[in-house]
């Protein structure tokens, strides 16, 4: 019983959240922040597989998120919304809650396929090339989508909103929150199972000494490609959720800056630590939202104290000075990240008896 304490606690927490949302106790803003937290957890822990466990440097991971977001949105629009591009909806709207998981999986697979296309040439060559090729892939993906006018081009795409509404019409539940929670749990389970298996430990072996890994029988090329595909697939899932939570998707939302956010979360949490990256994703989301309020407050305060010239306003853009600065300081004084290659249970061994993951 004790060993399952954490799992039970998380279950109660998740149920509590859903109930609170259902009862309308959480306002829309809090709900959205919570959902973005979940999306960030999926995106960051997926990226952690490549940048943390494998020690490679994928620099344009938001591109795969973009692929997932658009695949999911198009699928969902074709199935339930219809429109100029798709004609009549293929399925009655009542089926939306049933088919949404399939949309999630299909778009994850599609993003993984793009991951494969990127991984094949990258891992043939030197380590740095992954960084370059993923950056280029990120730009290419955005550029392609912006050039397809049928799906909105640079204006973005709206169709998936109807699917979300259809779900709310079927039953009055906080559907998107539910899907985000379920996805987070499933993605983390999947990742945990992958990295603790003998096959998955090959990923860390590649990171620590690739030559030894290859000569000790690890199919390094396959390991790298698999890890990269899983990682980009998870980014794709995060992308679908992102699009449906927003009810709108725009290719520019997944530019290099979004990729950088992912990097910040991975390195903040500690490369190769699952609990670390989850904590970092939560902390990062809170930090971004916190700064949204803190920056104007600081502005008012400094103006109140007459420390600033009257015409100078501290704008929200300072957020993107402060966040990189935090990461730079982290790299200087604690480069291994918050937890640094270790799990919470390794840092606090007492936690172990409360935790049982399978």
């Amino acid at each position, binding site marked *: 019983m004790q060993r399952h304490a954490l799992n039970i606690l998380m279950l109660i927490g998740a149920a509590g959240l859903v109930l609170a949302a259902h009862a309308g106790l959480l306002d829309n803003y809090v709900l959205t922040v919570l959902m973005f937290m979940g999306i960030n957890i999926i995106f960051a822990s997926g990226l952690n597989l490549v940048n943390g466990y494998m020690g490679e440097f994928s620099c344009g991971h938001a591109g795969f998120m973009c692929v997932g977001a658009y695949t999911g949105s198009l699928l969902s629009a074709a199935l339930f919304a219809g429109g100029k591009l798709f004609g009549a909806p293929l399925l009655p709207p009542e089926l939306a809650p049933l088919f949404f998981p399939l949309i999630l999986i299909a778009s994850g697979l599609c993003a993984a396929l793009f991951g494969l296309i990127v991984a094949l040439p990258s891992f043939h*060559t*030197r380590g740095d090339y992954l960084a370059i090729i993923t950056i280029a892939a990120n730009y290419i993906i955005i*550029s392609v989508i912006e050039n397809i006018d049928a799906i909105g081009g640079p204006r973005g795409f709206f169709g998936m909103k109807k699917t979300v509404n259809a779900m709310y019409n079927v039953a009055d539940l906080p559907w998107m929150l539910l899907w985000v929670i379920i996805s987070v749990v499933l993605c983390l389970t999947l990742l945990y199972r992958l990295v603790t298996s003998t096959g998955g430990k090959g990923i860390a072996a590649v990171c620590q000494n690739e030559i030894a890994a290859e000569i000790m029988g690890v199919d390094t090329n396959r390991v790298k490609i698999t890890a990269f595909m899983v990682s980009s697939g998870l980014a794709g899932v995060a992308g679908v959720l992102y699009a449906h939570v927003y009810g709108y998707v725009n290719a520019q939302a997944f530019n290099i800056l979004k990729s950088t956010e992912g990097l910040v979360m991975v390195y903040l949490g500690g490369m190769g630590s699952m609990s670390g990256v989850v904590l970092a994703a939560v902390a990062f989301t809170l930090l971004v939202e916190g700064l949204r309020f803190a920056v104007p407050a600081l502005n008012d305060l400094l103006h109140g104290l007459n420390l600033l010239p009257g015409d100078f306003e501290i704008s929200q853009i300072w957020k993107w000075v402060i966040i990189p600065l935090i990461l730079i300081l982290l790299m200087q004084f604690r480069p291994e990240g918050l937890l640094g290659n270790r799990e919470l249970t390794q840092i606090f061994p007492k936690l172990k008896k409360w935790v049982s993951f399978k």
Partner: protein
Amino acid sequence: MPTDKDRVPAARLLFRCLCMEQFIQQCVNALQWGSFYALIALGYTLVYGVLLLINFAHGDVFMVGAYIAFFVSTFLLSASGPELPQGAALALTIPATVILTSTVGVTLERIAYRPLRRKGAHRLYVVITALMCGLILENGNLALLGAGRKALPELLEKQIYTFGSITVTNLKLLVIFTALLVFVFLQAVVTRTRLGMAMRAVSWDKFALPLMGIPLDMVIVFTFALGSGIAGLGGLLFAMSYPVLDPYMGAMTGWKAFIAAVVGGIGDIRGAFAGGFLLAFVEIMVAAFLPSTFRDLFAFSILLIILWKRPTGIFGIPATTKI
């Protein structure tokens, strides 16, 4: 009296001539555009050659260079009044920009990268730091100076030379000429001077350098100063050619210049130029014959194909691993 039969080839010939001239015109534009890429790509390549570090902040150093050029030239023109001849303003702005921008690059190295190197941190941490420094430079600039666009005052009186239907401005010639000059200068530095040779030595064996009697840090500072100074020069020329400044102008140009450096074979000076001109050529030609939204798509795709077929780039040498 010409018949229809004769007229068709004549029209074709005329069309072909126009195409040819248009092509040459585009080539001139590509040379100018490629000069900017090459000037930025050099900084990436020099630093990578010495430290194996992808200095992701370098594109933003280029942007800072353009802003420094703006402040210096505005200050010069307003402080001295109209009696300062235009040429003199330019002649003063160039060294000031180069020196100030190299200071920025060296400062980055000193406060952000060097402490990490001293601690023997993983190369990846330094790359992340560089990426973050770039973000701070561009967003800090936006936060401090606001979103209002700055425009560089005119430093060079525009002159247009026309050959047939091809037009070349003196500014374009200046840009291309400067890039070539920098190339010759750099080749001389790395093959003739002690520090330049030391730079090449570091990329082979970091530990042999102290044996030559040159401190490693000095070589690194020199490398950063050189790379940033050239980027500053590029920023100035860019701002003169496209006078509206924007804090994010360095980001995209920087990424592309980096890819150009890789395509040329990162770590090689000739490679930075070859890659820069190649990238510019592709971009200009795509933009000339297709909708401009396809420019990035084609540029990046073609570069990826080159990397796939020749992973070490045009001038790169494959690295060997020893066990």
